């Protein structure tokens, strides 16, 4: 679907979407949808006036995907370990993505992003349990001052988006991504079709990763490594 009415031949479209002439698996598509949604939420955070209806709909979509993923046992690719957690606990924290510039310095997700792991958003972002009250001490993302605290407090629920909408802190796109390697956003623009403003670069980037994704099994392994890495950092702080 191309916003400007560009005509594409069927063959081109196939190639762009699939990447390697294989039909993307359902879980791959689902994962890329999740990534896209998280990016959308993060971007709407940075707008001066986020559209609440849009944010709510995207957040609900994210929840649906996560619930389905946990039902399927593919959440984090480590179903057994997380078996004791209720599905709602596996709400992915968008807090990392929504970090202010000062907190974004040296955040561990960044290296993983550069690794090009498709699973990065799902596996990296820590699990939060707002239902179980394991909220981090900080009640509002935007009120955190110390990057140190930020690093240790991944535990923000998806739902905090809405609190932050009330305590808006407009951060420019540039601030948030100043520390991210811009080569990450080398995009496959064929996938996205629509280029407007700064949004497409991110969405396209993630789509680009979708196309280049490794098969699921190897992703599981990388998830494990990454999660260990997360745990290390948590323990250290």
């Amino acid at each position, binding site marked *: *679907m*191309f*916003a*400007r*009415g560009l*005509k*594409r031949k069927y063959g081109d*479209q196939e190639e762009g979407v699939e990447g390697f002439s294989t039909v993307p698996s359902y879980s791959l*598509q*689902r994962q890329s*949808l999740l990534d*896209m949604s998280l990016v*959308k939420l993060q971007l709407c955070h940075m707008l*001066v*006036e986020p*559209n*609440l*209806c*849009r944010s*709510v*709909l995207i*957040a*609900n*979509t994210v929840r*649906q*995907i996560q619930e389905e993923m946990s039902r399927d046992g593919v959440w984090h690719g480590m179903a057994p370990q997380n078996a004791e957690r209720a599905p709602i606990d596996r709400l992915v924290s968008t807090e990392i993505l929504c970090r202010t510039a000062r907190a974004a310095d040296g955040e561990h997700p960044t290296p993983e992003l550069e690794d090009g792991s498709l699973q990065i958003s799902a596996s990296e972002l820590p699990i939060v349990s*707002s239902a179980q009250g394991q909220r981090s001490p900080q009640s509002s993302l935007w009120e955190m001052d110390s990057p140190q605290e930020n690093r240790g407090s991944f535990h923000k*629920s998806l*739902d*905090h988006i*809405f*609190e932050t*909408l*009330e*305590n*808006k*802190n*407009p951060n420019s796109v540039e601030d948030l991504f100043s520390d991210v390697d811009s080569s990450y956003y080398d995009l496959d623009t064929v996938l*996205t*079709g*629509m280029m407007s403003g700064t*949004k497409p670069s991110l*969405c396209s980037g993630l*789509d680009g990763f979708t196309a280049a994704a490794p098969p699921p099994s190897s992703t599981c392994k990388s998830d494990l490594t990454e999660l260990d890495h997360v745990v290390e950092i948590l323990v250290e702080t």
Partner: protein
Amino acid sequence: MGEDTDTRKINHSFLRDHSYVTEADVISTVEFNHTGELLATGDKGGRVVIFQREPESKNTPHSQGEYDVYSTFQSHEPEFDYLKSLEIEEKINKIKWLPQQNAAHSLLSTNDKTIKLWKITERDKRPEGYNLKDEEGKLKDLSTVTSLQVPVLKPMDLMVEVSPRRIFANGHTYHINSISVNSDCETYMSADDLRINLWHLAITDRSFNIVDIKPANMEDLTEVITASEFHPHHCNLFVYSSSKGSLRLCDMRAAALCDKHSKLFEEPEDPSNRSFFSEIISSVSDVKFSHSGRYMLTRDYLTVKVWDLNMEARPIETYQVHDYLRSKLCSLYESDCIFDKFECAWNGSDSVIMTGAYNNFFRMFDRNTKRDVTLEASRESSKPRAVLKPRRVCVGGKRRRDDISVDSLDFTKKILHTAWHPAENIIAIAATNNLYIFQDKVNSDMH
């Protein structure tokens, strides 16, 4: 609207009488007044432009007048909320006319936060022959005044004056999406994402909150209000729609806070069509009562539905606006097009419904004959005085010569705002920054 031939005449003989090009800004709302004599448009720049229909000439009593610009004024200016460090857009979200009670016209216009009541008056006479002032208004030398005269009213060029009579501010924390004037002509309501307030037209420092769906914990928020409207006849009834596709009819007599609905209209989900986008496409973007007050019209992303107020279980009619987009939902989600809010409209006799789509297409559905038509609002495709040609979107399979393929649709050309004259077959279509007014010269009366 009886026979097929009549239907075809109505659908096909819409002429383009007048296209007013506003270079400056994207039109964000269109609204006829109660007689259809005036048409108001609001734009992203906070301006309101009012068009007036020229009176029919006595020589040709059956030819309808055209719409010309009547007045233009700046309704809202951009503001800055210092507390939240946010800009408040001046874009006019909605305009609603008040029923005319004297020579003046009044309308309510609103942006995200503030509603304003504007009074539009005409001045076509002015007094001349003052005793103390001369023609230019300068004080006369009293020694030259030898007799007294009574000033007389002399005709002058028509001047339309617009003045803000009321400013209803600070009533909303969230973005206002709807306003609706009550049939009692004394009150009106304004709805934002989470709350609905009731105002008295004469009182600006107070409003009553009648619906509040904000959860105690914002983290629990999963549903927002998307549109609301008062019943056209029953001043105690109003409806509001949600992002989950439900409609709630509320009775203000039941309680001060109408959080408990009197009726809940919800269609059960179709399990065969379920996807991650099901909820998003079920979100109702507009709700309109029929003129009769018996039905409601809702628009969600892919369909328009007619609901009978007496039946909550499901709509009585469902019309597909652009079902060919159902397989494209993922890309539409990515481009944010899936969040586009299309409006819908009834014709004066509630027999035809209309809504916009992409590629500057708009659709009309005849409820009686079940026929539908797709028309295009663009300068290229319709010369003045020409009859609009029906368009067709092909989804593969047989393709006719003038068909448009789904992949060639221009998703930046969206018709979100449309309005239908209350009594005649005249429609106003806002296509980005262009306003199109189409009239049906063949069948001017509503069937």
